[in-house]
């Protein structure tokens, strides 16, 4: 294996993706393209199209206009004055990706890929989804672009995320419940790869996070960089200075890299990735690939990165209250930045997340998604210890109101249970 010489501590976004210091698609020793040979030409076509788009300033312009007119960008940065005062520490600001159409940052990536699909002349898209947000966004994109679409979703997730399935189907997507493996996100990814190796001629695989084979990590990072580009200007305007720390939850790692890119060259800004601590450390209890010590480097689902796996290289079960964070692997770009000590990783437990969510709802009238609440929890913990003239920025990657079933369960809400019982009895038996 090529060992990647550590570069200087200040990693710039340009450095990250110019690959002059390493091999294309590699971030330090992480990344790469590990796919069946049959997809070689498909990936080459995608890389070429992506490269052309990236070099074409009108493409980014088209992307921005689409995101503006369809998804409501730019999303604002909100100053959480109440929460800041209550904690008595740093000033807390939030980047509001929850205000996107479909309710999360996932749409940024999906609409960008939609434009590429149009350029490639393909007519069908497939996507994996765990929490359902990416599938929901993809179904939306497919409806808007007029593509056929099939969404693969682990059967366990289909059962627990029915609301998202309902909308995907109503927007015209076929949702396939994957019954292999753990019947969750990683299995849906495998199933997408199987579809793709069969239908690559007319089909694009819309990967939902900055993982998978190159060029996906780079491509998803690029589309998501719209978050950081906006946020840097906005926070300078709103806070009058750069943030001292930036927090984002890390599932696959797309919202985090999206925001972090805005501050990559700002040495004084510390970047903090917040992983799913679940029940706490210990294999099978969580999905913290970097913050805990239970993961190791491996190669799966198209990329080399840290995975929660056993000594045979078989993947472990993961757990998080947030369905969007319980992925076995992690964005290889972030792993590299972590090794370079440019990004700090922390794990947040389910219990901490629930508390942070409750506090945020009550003090600010915001309902962060359970995923995003991981960033809130860590920021709240740290802000309290910081001084009043310091500034932290949290990525609110999505809104929580679509998670009502999960959140009601997490909060143990009795009225809710009663409501469901009653609805069920209204519907009568099958």
């Amino acid at each position, binding site marked *: 294996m090529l060992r990647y010489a550590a570069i200087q501590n200040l990693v710039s976004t340009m450095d990250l993706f110019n690959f002059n210091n390493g091999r294309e698609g590699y971030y330090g020793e992480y990344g790469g393209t590990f796919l*069946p040979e049959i997809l070689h030409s498909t990936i080459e076509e995608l890389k070429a199209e992506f490269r052309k788009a990236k070099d074409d300033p009108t493409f980014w312009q088209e992307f921005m206009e689409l995101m503006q007119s369809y998804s409501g960008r730019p999303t604002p940065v909100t100053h959480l004055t109440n929460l800041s005062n209550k904690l008595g520490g740093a000033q807390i600001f939030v980047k509001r990706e929850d205000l996107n159409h479909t309710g999360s940052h996932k749409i940024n990536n999906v609409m960008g890929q939609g434009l590429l699909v149009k350029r490639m002349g393909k007519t069908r898209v497939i996507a994996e989804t765990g929490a359902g947000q990416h599938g929901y966004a993809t179904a939306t994109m497919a409806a808007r672009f007029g593509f056929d679409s099939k969404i693969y979703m682990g059967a366990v997730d289909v059962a627990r995320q029915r609301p998202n399935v309902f909308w995907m189907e109503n927007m015209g997507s076929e949702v396939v419940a994957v019954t292999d*493996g753990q019947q969750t996100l990683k299995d849906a990814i*495998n199933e997408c790869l199987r579809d793709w*190796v069969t239908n690559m001629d007319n089909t694009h695989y819309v990967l939902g996070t900055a993982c998978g084979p190159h060029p996906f990590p780079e491509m998803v990072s690029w589309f998501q960089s719209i978050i950081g580009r906006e946020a840097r200007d906005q926070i300078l305007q709103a806070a009058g200075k750069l943030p001292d720390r930036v927090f984002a939850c890390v599932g696959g790692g797309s919202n985090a890299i999206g925001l972090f890119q805005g501050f990559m060259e700002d040495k004084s800004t510390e970047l903090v990735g917040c992983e799913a601590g679940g029940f706490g450390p210990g294999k099978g209890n969580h999905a913290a690939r970097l913050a805990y010590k239970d993961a190791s480097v491996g190669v*799966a689902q198209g990329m080399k990165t840290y995975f929660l796996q056993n000594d045979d290289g078989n993947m472990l079960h993961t757990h998080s209250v947030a369905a969007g964070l319980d992925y076995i692997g992690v964005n290889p770009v972030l792993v590299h930045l972590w090794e370079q000590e440019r990004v700090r990783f922390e794990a947040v437990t389910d219990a901490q997340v629930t508390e942070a969510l409750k506090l945020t709802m009550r003090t600010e009238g915001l309902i962060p998604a359970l995923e995003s609440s991981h960033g809130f929890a860590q920021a709240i913990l740290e802000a309290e210890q910081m001084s009043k003239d310091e500034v932290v920025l949290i990525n609110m990657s999505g809104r929580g109101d679509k998670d009502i079933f999960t959140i009601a369960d997490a909060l143990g809400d009795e009225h809710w249970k009663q409501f469901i019982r009653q609805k069920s009895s209204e519907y009568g038996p099958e």
Partner: protein
Amino acid sequence: MALNNYLAERKQALASTKRPAMIMTHVVCGYPSFDDNWKELEIMQSYGVDLVELQFPFSEPSADGPLFVKANQEAIENGVHVEDCFAFMKKVTDHFSFKVIMMGYYNTVFKTGHKRFLQRLKDAGASGFILPDLPVEEAGELHDIAAELELAPIVLMTPTNSDQRLAQLAEAADGFIYTVARKGVTGSNTDMNSEVSQFIDRCRQHTELPLAVGFGVSEAKDVAFIGQHADIAVIGTAALKAWEHGKEQALSEFFEQLLG
């Protein structure tokens, strides 16, 4: 390399039989059980198969079709470890006369370590390995070690490859080349038609190595077709289906209609 010689000999031997092509079969280690595997292998041996792929189960078998996905998954659930696969392989190569190729996903190799894995493969008597998710660009170091150990790194050629790419793949290959007769995962039938033969002919232009053809071989006419254009017919899902359907008897009947 040992495998090259073996295949050259077997190919020559074919001429004196009615069999149109060499045969490679497939077994997932520990599925349904190692005992079942052994019985399958005895039948395969009795039909004179030339090569057997022993698949090391992996939790994310993304290039496999439903039947093998289930097999991988259940083997792992049954407690099959990499350790057990090596031990079984050793037993197999000691006992049978066909050559054994390790088949699996790259993470199993990566996690054990390139050098260590290939050394153990060698010790277990394997002749080569097939890693469908390891592209040649990423295989440099592994192939170098394989060359030292005289293990054949089996490379795949596919209908979507350009001529340029086929040439590049041919360069990295040794032992034989696995040509994928169609898009898709293992387990569905392929129509053996002129499109397939044109593809195989295209592969042939780039290599002198024997060509194996998957996927979807299930009938005698498929083997005959392959014999006309290539060298090795790969029997995967169809055999496992037969076993699942009726154990020894069904598997024997399957091979009987295919090769008898």
